[in-house]
């Protein structure tokens, strides 16, 4: 049954140094507040899994939280590069990180397989791509019925998944609405999960087939108002495209990044 914790306590309890962590949200509902809390608590040696690392992992990588990143598209959407990711990969600052890269289809299927309790995902993919030559976690199997060669990747099964959602009810059931990405899969695939929400309500007011994650499938719920900014929360607030653009200049330079981190994460409280 989900426990209601402060974001500080949830991260302190469930994000251990060295853990495999998936923080999902496909452009929408990216759990930035939780990411900042991980940075503030100086978690180290994390293996970070995310289809699109986005600014959130750029910040965590720049802050030195990650030893490895598993991803399928590592850019600042519509803007350009993730400079902190590149600096770590290309120059080893603030530390050398390993990367393991997939395609979106592979990772989406791997999250699905993780939620489904399977060790692998099977899909029609990676045909002609050279990604299998640099990622030894991509294999191929033969269909026993048709003989077709299909791709196989290990399922994603994080130690902890963290997502942001619109709201939870008092029993800890969570509503996710809009672009739902792979968030439900991330939660169900993980050993532990933290969901940050905009608010706690008496009644989710969900339609019969809404994406609702039951409280008993979640470890901890923490209220984090505007917890997805500069990403957005459908029905609550919009995406700060402006910040995504500004991030390019902030992150391009180690000093300006460090300054930003000091001002906006380390010196800030839990609600930054």
């Amino acid at each position: 049954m989900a426990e209601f914790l402060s974001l500080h306590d949830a991260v302190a309890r469930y994000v251990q140094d060295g853990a495999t962590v998936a923080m999902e949200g496909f452009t929408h509902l990216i759990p930035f507040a939780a990411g900042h809390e991980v940075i503030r608590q100086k978690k180290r040696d994390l293996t970070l899994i995310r289809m699109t690392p986005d600014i959130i992992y750029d910040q965590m990588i720049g802050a030195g939280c990650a030893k490895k990143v598993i991803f399928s598209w590592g850019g600042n959407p519509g803007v350009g590069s993730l400079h902190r990711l590149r600096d770590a990969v290309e120059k080893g600052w603030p530390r050398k990180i390993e990367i393991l890269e997939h395609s979106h289809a592979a990772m989406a299927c791997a999250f699905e397989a993780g939620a489904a309790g399977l060790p692998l995902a099977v899909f029609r993919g990676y045909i002609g791509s050279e990604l299998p030559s640099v990622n030894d976690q991509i294999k191929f199997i033969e269909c026993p019925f048709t003989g077709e060669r299909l791709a196989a990747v290990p399922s994603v099964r994080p130690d902890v998944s963290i997502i942001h959602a619109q709201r939870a009810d008092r029993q800890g059931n969570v509503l996710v609405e809009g672009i739902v990405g792979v968030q439900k899969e991330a939660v169900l695939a993980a050993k532990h999960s933290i969901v940050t929400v905009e608010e706690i309500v008496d009644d989710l007011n969900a339609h019969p087939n809404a994406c609702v994650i039951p409280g008993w499938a979640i470890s901890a719920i923490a209220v984090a108002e505007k917890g997805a900014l500069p990403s957005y929360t459908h029905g609550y607030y919009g995406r700060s495209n402006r910040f995504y653009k500004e991030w390019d200049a902030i992150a391009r330079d180690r000093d300006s990044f460090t300054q930003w981190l000091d001002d906006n994460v380390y010196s800030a409280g839990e609600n930054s």
Partner: protein
Amino acid sequence: MSLEYTSSEMMSVTAARALENGMTCFVGIGLPSEAANLARLTHAPDVVLIYESGTLQTKPDILPLSIGDGELCESALTTVAVPEMFRYWLQGGKVDVGFLGTAQIDRFANLNTTLIGDYKAPKVRLPGGGGAPEIATNAGEVFITLKHSKRAFVKDVDFVTTLGFGRDGKGRDNVPNIGKGPTRVITDLCVMKPDPDSKELVVVSLHPGVSREDVIDATGWEIRFTEQLESTPEPSENELTILRELKARTERAHADA
């Protein structure tokens, strides 16, 4: 009367015209998204646009900055989970055309969005594959649009992130359940199509005011021109107006947010 327009506008209009009304298009962010929405707002009102964020049949009023902007969901017929998008809609064979951009493309239309240099010690690290590797093989066919330059159009890509026709042009031969692959490449200079036999990209149409030399100078291999080389039709006034309004709306919206 000839209209004033930029080479970027020429590219977008030409890319838009590639889409036929009623086609189902899996849209990449950036130039493909601009072209696909221009098509929808002009000659192809019933083109079905799908973005990998799970937004099915979406009709954004402004261009999304990211692949998952709220606008895409709010104007969609419905929004599905990302695994479903890749499994049911793309791999399930519901997509007529995948519309992609790229950082690098080679003569066999292989795409590189992974890195420049060597994988272990990259000169430039690019964003990676994203949806492209499977869009390119599971969609019925693929349109590619990008600006023409020697850096982008190389003889052999540093890394095949996404299959065009393989490093020897035979990458799709005898592969079951695979799409036709890239059927046209639209740049700010010209339109290219793969040679039916060798699959090497060949210029089939030059944009107005562009010379063969312009294309040759901007291409990293000895580019060939088809015998019946055409001149790409100019943008119409209507297309330009709608494109400019779309971009102005978009800029205003993104500046505000």
